[in-house]
């Protein structure tokens, strides 16, 4: 996995400039700008419905922005071969004749014509990738019969095997229990470091990611603020973003973002934490 150019560490893998998105009559994103540098581990944080998935789709070229531009590795347009993507929702039929290793192999050459000829190097490459996500033990199981966490690891392998420079993950932690969450986060951190790639991971809950994040893009009310975690997760920055008073509390090493404080506090949320811009009533 030495294919990734290790040229300038400051080189931007992804530049998003002034992106506006309208869906129907609704403005979902307005003037969103940020950059993701090579090898950055970036969190895309925001409440459900804040526009994270839309932003991912814009980056992937699946959703044309109303204005603004997206450059990938300095080039505009559709260069999606350099992006690996793990979608938020995936449902595979349990009886589909497609093993974990077949799905990973499709990550190499799904765009090619015809049936892949058996090849030892291809097979070894797939197995190495599955090993990297701790997935060798279920390589020969039908993808639809794996658990959600296992399927996710296979999808990560599928995304990584084409040696992208940027890995996009849409809410990979949303449906995982705390133990699996830890496992996936440390796995991603390990892979990002080993394979020299930039990771952009979206989440509505930032705490499990805080130990590994280099930078953060915080999305709220269709706008985004980006920077190092300590530059963004601050009461003044987030208050400006939300256009409302926001408190940022540090409790037992966890970060709680409390919004709508003027309307009275009611502490609920994930494990007693109020996070992610949920407006409380």
């Amino acid at each position, binding site marked *: 996995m030495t294919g990734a150019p290790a040229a300038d560490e400051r080189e931007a893998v992804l530049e998003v400039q002034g992106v506006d998105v309208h869906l129907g009559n609704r403005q979902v994103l307005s003037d969103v700008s940020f950059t993701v540098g090579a090898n950055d581990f970036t969190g895309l944080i925001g409440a459900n419905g804040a526009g994270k998935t839309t932003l991912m789709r814009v980056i*992937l*070229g*699946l959703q044309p922005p109303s204005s603004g531009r997206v450059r990938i590795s300095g080039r505009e347009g*559709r260069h*999606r*071969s350099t*992006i690996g*993507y793990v*979608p938020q*929702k*995936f449902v*595979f039929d349990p*009886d*589909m*004749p*497609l*093993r974990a290793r*077949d*799905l990973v192999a*499709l990550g190499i*050459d*799904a*765009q*090619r*014509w*015809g*049936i*892949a000829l058996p090849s030892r190097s291809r097979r070894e490459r797939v197995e190495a990738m599955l090993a990297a996500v701790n997935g060798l033990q279920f390589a*020969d*199981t*039908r*993808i639809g019969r794996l658990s959600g966490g296992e399927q996710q690891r296979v*999808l990560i392998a*599928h995304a990584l095997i084409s040696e992208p420079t940027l890995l996009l993950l849409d809410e990979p932690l949303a449906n995982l229990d705390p133990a699996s969450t830890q496992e996936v986060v440390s796995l991603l951190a390990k892979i990002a470091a080993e394979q020299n790639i930039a990771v952009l991971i979206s989440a509505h809950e930032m705490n499990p990611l805080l130990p590994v994040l280099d930078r953060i893009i915080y999305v709220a009310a269709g706008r985004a603020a980006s920077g190092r975690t300590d530059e963004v997760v601050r009461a003044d920055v987030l208050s400006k973003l939300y256009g409302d008073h926001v408190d940022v509390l540090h409790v037992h090493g966890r970060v709680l973002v409390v919004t709508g404080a003027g309307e009275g506090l009611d502490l609920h949320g994930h494990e007693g934490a109020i996070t992610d811009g949920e407006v409380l009533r």
Partner: protein
Amino acid sequence: MSGFLSPVFEPGFFASAQVHVALEVGTVVALVAAAVGSFAVLRGQSFAGEALSDVGTAGGSGAFLVGVGPLWGFLVLGAAAACAMELIGVQRPRGRDLATGIVLGAGLGLAALFFSLVAEYRDTTGAPVTVLFGSLFTVSASLTPAIAALSVAGLALVLALYRPLLLSSASAELAAARGLPVRLIGVLYLVALVLAVALASLTIGTILSTGLLVGPAASAMRLTARPVRALLMAGLLGVAAVWLGVLLAYDSFYWPPVGHGWPVSFFVVALVMVFYLASGLPRALGARKRRRSAAGEAA
């Protein structure tokens, strides 16, 4: 050799020109149907296959009206129906189910109209039944080149599209994120489906062609987890169903009531159903064995 097999192969089986044509055409069509059908099952488009074949009924009867071969009728109306389904273009499975049903209903309505016109203007009362139930034994040898060419086209299309089609069938989202033209792949696949359904309709009849399309593929999927192997196995099962069906139908001339041959299409779909039921056995037996061993450990 022929002596001890004579209870299986009734006299004249190998000499009959009809049997030769039936076996040749049946083999080719079974292979195309299996390859295309594998993806129909994978993509949850069995209903679309069924709808296309029923729309083919209208095509076949319409062909009688204008006096061309039914194959061309199947192809023309099949293509029109595929376009209609694609234009309605609903992405959610339940919506797609409805869109297919509407096209199917309209197609069958057209078939009813054409049949009544055939009955009115042409003295071919048997024609509708031939279109509906078909028979490998009545396929004319002169059609073989056209069937072979269309089969090669259908098979080539599916095999050429194999990898993009497999990924977009497994997850359209993953395929789209890689920049694959998911919609175009879907349209090209529909073209292959129209070809396969037209060929199967010609050989075993419009209302039974779905059997050859879906049955072998669905059975193979239960027998193996490997995609390429499932494709090969579906082809094998399809060819086996056709060969055995032809043999049994030929033999049935000698069954009581003597002199009445049972329809070959009946045997083909019956065998396909038997294969499907049998393909569930390994897993059912495995589950029973596991239960028994678990009970043994507990005891």
